[in-house]
């Protein structure tokens, strides 16, 4: 997301991006924590939900609740139509070729597990190799470790440099005719690094490997076009995209999904069941066993409507300018060290303070009404790479303001006072 040049002429507080109006859409932001206005800077963990999403969930349960794909009654037909309409919104949102390529899952984690266990386990042998990176969230490490234990395949890691960027030369060395799967994050949750995934995908394809992109941190901040990327699988979660928790998406190329065995089995994923054998349903239902999170899917559709109406590109530029401002301000604090200084990064400021543990920073900031994340961010290999147990991480969304960045900076000063 190289918006630096285009951002220059756009003032984030200008009329085209009415921050007060946007904040009014998020009722949770209007509250006090320990007597101070809430400053929510933990968006990389989960984002807040606009009224437009909350109302859709409320209306669904009050007026439409019914099981889908089976009832002949009116409510079931209405619920099914809304559910499938949300699938179409997802398809448009990431520019998939067909709604058959959009599988609803619980979240990014389940999507990755699905690919590892269905695609991976049915096709890998002990001679094969999988490539991931040091930068990954545990959810894009552990499923591959388990797959490699099960199949005997070898797991290789792309290393990162001191800025927290993938070292592409090392990636190229790891790629070989044995590589079957490359799985990397689009944007790092711990550091905010934007990875050059187009290059990574093209290089993997050149040797015949398939590529899964963990898009959990990317989809809320940047426009994703799966056809342009030409990735084989793309996974993301609804709750980081201003939608409900417990719902996510696996995009997979149709030919791949068709060839893959079911991941879970039960109702809705079958066409015919006899006591001897069952035939499986068509895509995407083959991968949606059981009653799904219907309200969650419809809520995710509402979240996509919301970001589309907001003007996704303008929001991204606003977020980028906010991050730049936060970086400038934080750089002036003595004893503050940035962790992750990639040239291309977004919305995440990971840092440490000399002599003050990130958990103490987290508690003191909470006392000032500021919510950040302190810890290893489910990316322990990244922490190990930088030789630290944890970082403090402030992560921004389009509803955050410069005044909130100022509050963060003041609160960091307070941490230093407490420990002085």
């Amino acid at each position, binding site marked *: 997301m190289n918006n630096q040049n285009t951002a220059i002429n756009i003032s984030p507080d200008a009329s085209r991006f009415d921050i007060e109006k946007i904040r009014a859409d998020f009722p949770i932001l209007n509250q006090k924590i*320990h*007597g101070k206005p809430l400053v929510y800077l933990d968006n990389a963990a989960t984002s807040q939900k606009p009224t437009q999403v909350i109302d859709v969930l409320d209306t669904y349960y009050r007026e439409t609740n019914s099981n889908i794909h089976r009832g002949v009654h009116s409510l079931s037909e209405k619920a099914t139509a809304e559910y499938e309409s949300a699938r179409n919104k997802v398809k448009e949102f990431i520019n998939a070729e067909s709604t058959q390529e959009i599988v609803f899952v619980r979240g990014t984690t389940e999507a990755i597990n699905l690919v590892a266990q269905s695609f991976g386990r049915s096709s890998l042998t002990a001679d094969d190799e999988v490539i991931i990176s040091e930068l990954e969230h545990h959810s894009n490490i552990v499923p591959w470790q388990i797959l490699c234990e099960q199949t005997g395949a070898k797991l290789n890691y792309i290393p990162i440099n001191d800025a927290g960027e993938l070292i592409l030369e090392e990636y190229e060395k790891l790629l070989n005719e044995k590589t079957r799967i490359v799985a990397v994050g689009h944007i790092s949750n711990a550091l905010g690094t934007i990875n050059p995934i187009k290059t990574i995908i093209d290089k993997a394809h050149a040797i015949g490997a398939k590529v899964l992109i963990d898009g959990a941190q990317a989809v809320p901040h940047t426009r994703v076009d799966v056809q342009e990327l030409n990735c084989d699988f793309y996974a993301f979660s609804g709750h980081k995209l201003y939608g409900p928790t417990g719902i996510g998406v696996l995009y997979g190329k149709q030919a791949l999904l068709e060839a893959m065995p079911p991941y879970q089995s039960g109702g809705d994923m079958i066409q015919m069941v006899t006591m001897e054998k069952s035939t499986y349903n068509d895509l995407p239902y083959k991968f949606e066993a059981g009653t799904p999170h219907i309200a969650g899917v419809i809520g995710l559709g509402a979240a996509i409507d919301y970001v589309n109406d907001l003007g996704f590109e303008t929001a991204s530029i606003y977020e980028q300018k906010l991050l730049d401002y936060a970086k400038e301000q934080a750089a002036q604090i003595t004893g503050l060290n940035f962790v992750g200084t990639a040239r291309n990064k977004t919305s995440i400021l990971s840092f440490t303070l000399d*002599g*003050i*543990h*990130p*958990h*103490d920073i987290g*508690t*003191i900031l909470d*006392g000032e009404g500021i919510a950040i994340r*302190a*810890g*290893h961010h489910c990316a322990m290999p990244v*922490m190990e790479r930088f030789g630290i*147990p*944890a970082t403090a991480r402030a992560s921004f969304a389009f509803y955050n303001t410069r005044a909130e960045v100022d509050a963060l900076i003041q609160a960091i000063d*307070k941490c230093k006072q*407490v*420990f002085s």
Partner: protein
Amino acid sequence: MFDIKDLYQEVIVDHNRSPRNFGKLDDADKTLEGFNPLCGDKLTLYLKTDGQKINDIAFDGSGCAISVASASLMTDAMKGMSLEAAEALFNEFHNLITTDDDSDIDHLGKLAALAGVKAYPARVKCASLCWHTLHSALQGDSTPVRTE
């Protein structure tokens, strides 16, 4: 009125900055690790006992101010204490940071400074990690202690 200084009292800041009894005990007869997987706090506790009392105690590792100060204060309090009294102090301290019962607060001395963690449920495990490690070490356990 909320005040962060109720948690980060002077004695805690001081024991975090200059932890007492920090380092290895080469002639320790009991060594046990404590680990808080959620936040990554790690410590190793070294004990020299004669079956009756704790003759010497030390710790090393890394963690937040609460966990380091707690280990520093605990090791200070435990030095020279009978094993029986050590177990009793473990129970009193546990009550102090997990219940509203502060009847023991007067004779807990400097340890009373850690009472503030009660208001921070997520931080109770930081204060209690070294204590659980000590408790397990005195019970003769050799498996590393984990607090969740």
